[in-house]
């Protein structure tokens, strides 16, 4: 029997009429379906950790499909920071190239923080509302996910056949049953009952803070060393976390630039790689920044990070520290030829071809 599926729609901050219409078209279409609960929230990133929006999301049990005007990774790890965790559901509706996922598996194997974590027995699908302009495509994807979830039994058959995955064995040894632990007792709702809509209003202002992608983070502590505003901390098992998000300096993405694994996301930053894109996607609109006074520069990421940090220190009435030893040591321009990796050599060879 199909389980009810929880769909969350996080509204954008922009008053772009096309975006507003897409949001409402999706909600309207979903209300014609059965077996779906739709929750409309203000922009996910801006929700207060103890606000009604986040509490409502924490109360949702079972599989979750979250739509937002952010990259999938950004949404997933904002939820994770607020104890809304689950296995990463794979959506087929995406704005990005799938190709680079292959690249990632070719990366050298490192221990990621996520490897040591147990996730609740549920899936969370994050969908970027920029993936399509058609509400129908989002609705079709939600139906596909619902169907996928209804056929989960297959996993168990593999197990019976003797091919248990590590997480299945884990679950067998330590049943978590997290899905039943909502803040409200699970209502005796018929799984195939009509769709229901919940609208949550929250009037907090805009927020700005880093979001850590623990599937990339290696707990190297570069960020906690770099940030001089006390945003980062460690938990009881010495794992890095964003401890004081509101200490973060509005607009400053500097720690993201110094993260060796590109694991720090600022979902609202204009640079796709910092905002959580897997690959830098080109912008469709005209960039007027040069006309409006953008400086022309040739800084590398570490110099930019040092400058951005200094700007924030000065604005906070503190002393600028510039390029400190920790940063200078990691600057790629100081890397000798012998330290180049394969990709560097390949690019050099391509350059030499003079195509």
């Amino acid at each position, binding site marked *: 029997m199909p389980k009810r599926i929880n769909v969350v729609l996080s509204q954008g901050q922009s008053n772009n009429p096309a975006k507003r219409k897409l949001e409402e078209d999706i909600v309207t279409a979903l209300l014609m379906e059965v077996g779906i609960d739709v929750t409309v929230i203000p922009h996910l990133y801006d929700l207060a950790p103890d606000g009604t929006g986040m509490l409502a999301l924490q109360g949702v049990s079972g599989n979750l499909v979250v739509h937002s005007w952010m990259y999938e990774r950004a949404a997933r790890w904002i939820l994770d920071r607020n104890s809304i965790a689950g296995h990463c559901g794979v959506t087929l509706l995406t704005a990005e190239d799938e190709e680079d996922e292959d690249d990632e598996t070719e990366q050298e194997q490192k221990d990621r923080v996520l490897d040591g974590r147990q996730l609740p027995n549920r899936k969370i699908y994050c969908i970027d509302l920029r993936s399509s302009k058609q509400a129908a495509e989002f609705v079709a994807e939600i139906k596909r996910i619902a169907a996928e979830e209804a056929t989960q039994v297959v996993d168990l058959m593999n197990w019976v056949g003797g091919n248990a995955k590590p997480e299945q064995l884990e679950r067998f040894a330590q049943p978590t049953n997290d899905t039943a632990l909502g803040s409200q007792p699970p209502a005796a709702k018929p799984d195939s009952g009509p769709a229901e809509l919940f609208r949550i209003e929250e009037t907090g202002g805009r927020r700005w803070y880093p979001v850590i992608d623990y599937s990339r983070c290696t707990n190297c502590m570069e960020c906690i060393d770099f940030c001089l505003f006390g945003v980062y901390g460690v938990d009881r098992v010495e794992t890095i976390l964003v401890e004081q998000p509101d200490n973060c300096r*509005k607009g400053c993405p500097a720690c993201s630039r110094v993260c060796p694994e590109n694991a720090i996301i600022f979902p609202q930053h*204009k640079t796709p790689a910092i905002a959580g894109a897997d690959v830098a996607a080109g912008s469709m*609109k005209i960039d007027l920044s040069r006309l409006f*006074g953008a400086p022309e520069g040739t800084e590398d990421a570490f110099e930019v990070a040092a400058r951005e940090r200094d700007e924030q220190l000065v604005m906070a009435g503190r002393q600028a520290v510039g390029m400190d030893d920790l940063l200078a040591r990691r600057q790629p321009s100081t890397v000798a030829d012998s330290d180049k990796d394969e990709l560097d050599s390949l690019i050099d060879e391509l350059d030499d071809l003079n195509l």
Partner: protein
Amino acid sequence: MSDSLVFLMGEFEARFPTDRQYARNHMWALPVDDRWRFGFAAYAVRLLQDVYFLDWTIDAPAQIHIKQEMGAIESKKAESTLYAPATGNILHFNEELLADPSAINVDKYGNGWLFEMQAVRDEFLAPEEYIEYLGEVWEVTQRTIKGQMNE
């Protein structure tokens, strides 16, 4: 409104009130008591057209340098980072524009003001000087727009 000067952007008549000064990043600056109030001049609003989203990347009050990055804007036609028009202390932003930025289009020289600041140095242009400056940059602006459209 008081008298204004006109600059022709193609067929479009962009009007610039003479009761205030202008910054080279296409903002107007109006003295209010001991501070300056800033907003987008007609040149910028014409290029942007309908503004959908405005965001500031600093919290007021804040010391800021001329040309320092301070925000971002998204409109029907364009998007841009925003930079400080002068060096000084940003006192506060027009908070109403964050929820609904449409006043930038409806009333750019009045309720659509962006922020107030104490400018340390006033390097602003008189309306006549600004019009002259627009004559110099209009060609570059057109090239920028066409160049990017053809990419």
